[in-house]
């Protein structure tokens, strides 16, 4: 579930507010958005992908809240990890040409 909007990093662009498919955030004028409905979060990581400055952290625990420490997340290099793995930059899509999913279909064990 979504656990952090970093006030240090957030540039209040509101991208996460419009991107969240579960309407978890509320917009606050000129301020970072608030996590208004955390229990509606579906742990899809997509807000992280859309955030241009890696200000969000979605904990992988889908059904329980976990307290997070921003400094620790930064130290461990966890902020923006999903975006980097996908290859998106500044909220812009990239990286599909580096997808290696096809390897799972090479030995014929699985076929669509």
């Amino acid at each position: 579930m979504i656990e952090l909007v970093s006030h240090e990093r957030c540039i209040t662009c509101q991208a996460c507010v419009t991107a969240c498919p579960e309407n978890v955030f509320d917009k606050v004028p000129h301020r970072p958005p608030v996590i208004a409905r955390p229990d509606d979060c579906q742990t899809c990581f997509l807000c992280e992908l859309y955030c241009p400055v890696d200000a969000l952290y979605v904990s992988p625990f889908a059904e329980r809240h976990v307290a997070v420490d921003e400094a620790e997340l930064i130290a461990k290099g966890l902020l923006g990890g999903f975006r980097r793995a996908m290859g998106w930059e500044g909220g812009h899509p990239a990286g599909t040409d580096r997808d290696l999913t096809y390897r799972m279909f090479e030995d014929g064990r699985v076929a669509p």
Partner: protein
Amino acid sequence: MAVQEKSFDARRAESAPKQVDVLVIGGGPAGVWAALTAAERGASVLLAEKGLVGTGGATAAGNTTTIYAGPSSLEREAAIKRRLQHAQGLADRHWIERVIDESFARLNQLADWGYRYPVDQHGQSYRGSLRGADYLRFMRRRLRKAGVEVLDQSPALELLLDDDGAAAGAVGVNRLTNEVWTVHAGAVVVASGGCAFLSNGLGTNGLTGDGLLMAGEAGATFSGMEFSGQYGISPLFASVTKGIMYFWATFTDEDGNELPGEGDRQGIVARQLLKGRCFAVIDKAPPYLQQGMRVGQPNMFIAFDRTGIDPFKQRFEVALRYEGTVRGPGGLAINDDGATSVVGLYAAGDAASRENMVGAASGGGGPNATWALSTGIWAGRAAAEFVARLGNKHHLRKPKPSGQVGLRPTRETRTELGAREVIKAVQSEILPIAKNFFRREEPLRQSLAALDGVWAAASGELSAAHLPAAELVRAREAAAMLATARWVVASAVERRETRGLNRRDDHPKQDPALARRLFTGGLDSVWVSAEAQSRALAS
């Protein structure tokens, strides 16, 4: 909770209707292809999406494997054979062929438009997989170019019908602004996906059967709703129900004993979960493949990386999350053009019954995405043609709202039945594997009776008419899950055999006489009827 001064109907009456030829509800792959195709045919098109066109639905959250097979290729023949085999008598070869062929052309067109496919080890452009978030973002740009108006964060809440009962638009609400919107349209395409009952499976919580409820209120017919004993495997703590990697997994019980059941991943886990805890380790993938998985499925590995688990070496506890009609085939019955039994109402993707393509089985891992793409195109095309035949007449219609439960309760005096209570009640009948993965007559009948009771109460009492957008949407989602659950359970009662995703412990064998579709529908009283002739006998 802030109460709105004005009722939903008062807010609706104040919203100035937009007028378009085709309204598309839902912006996953089925919806975006429907909208694009209708626009290419010259129709004015509006697409309303609950989340964002780009993040909403089952495709957005994951990668999506497709069937990419050229005309008269060996792959095409093999894919068709595989489908027919899995379908257990209820698919249609002609449909499988046309779905594969339509998608093949479009997957190539995506490359021509600039979608960047990877290059495989043979130096070939690999077109059998799309990255969901990128695919939909890409399609969003195409929609803009084609002049489609997109309403994000704007779930539809009810259909509008004309005097003859034909679909003539919809009413919804913008979740960010709280404004009610009204669209009058010549035709409506339902592409709102399946129903996974808020089980927290990857990308499925927005998929609550809303379009099914709306179509049901207009009197539409559904098919294959019993083929819905579909669950996805996830790590116990996480939402990620990516199933493909478990082909290389070993499943064990708490003591580390390996669990039998070659190939049937969900079955292995389900049987173990009835007894106790279940664990998995993806220990059969060589390093080359591990890298393929890691790069190809980032959301799966982000979950592991953030908890410090190495899934290739360490056992992790797994769970099953219900996917209902998302990866299960049931949905609105459609004809060759994607038309439902309601005039002017079309359906595509997971909202439509996928039996023609996958029969009684799940079509995860390729068929489903291919189905969404092709049926989206057909529904968009047929809707545009339907509107062209209507001419300008549709602008003169006076569409009326058709939503009931959650919007317009039948009783004057109400106790406080909330959406969350309804959702809990539905989930307690539909999520447990003991009730819905493994089915039996008596428990199914008890579930149906319980759900009928909740329906009667909700019809009378559930109302969010005076509540803000988020609550209005929840109430309709609750009603939609409740309606869908009743069509699922009522159909499962009637199919007294085990076939595909209808596993009946009390009828463990397939019955050749039941090689026929089951149709269902109805709200206050749910009906089920069987296709007149058995397919095995017919062919």
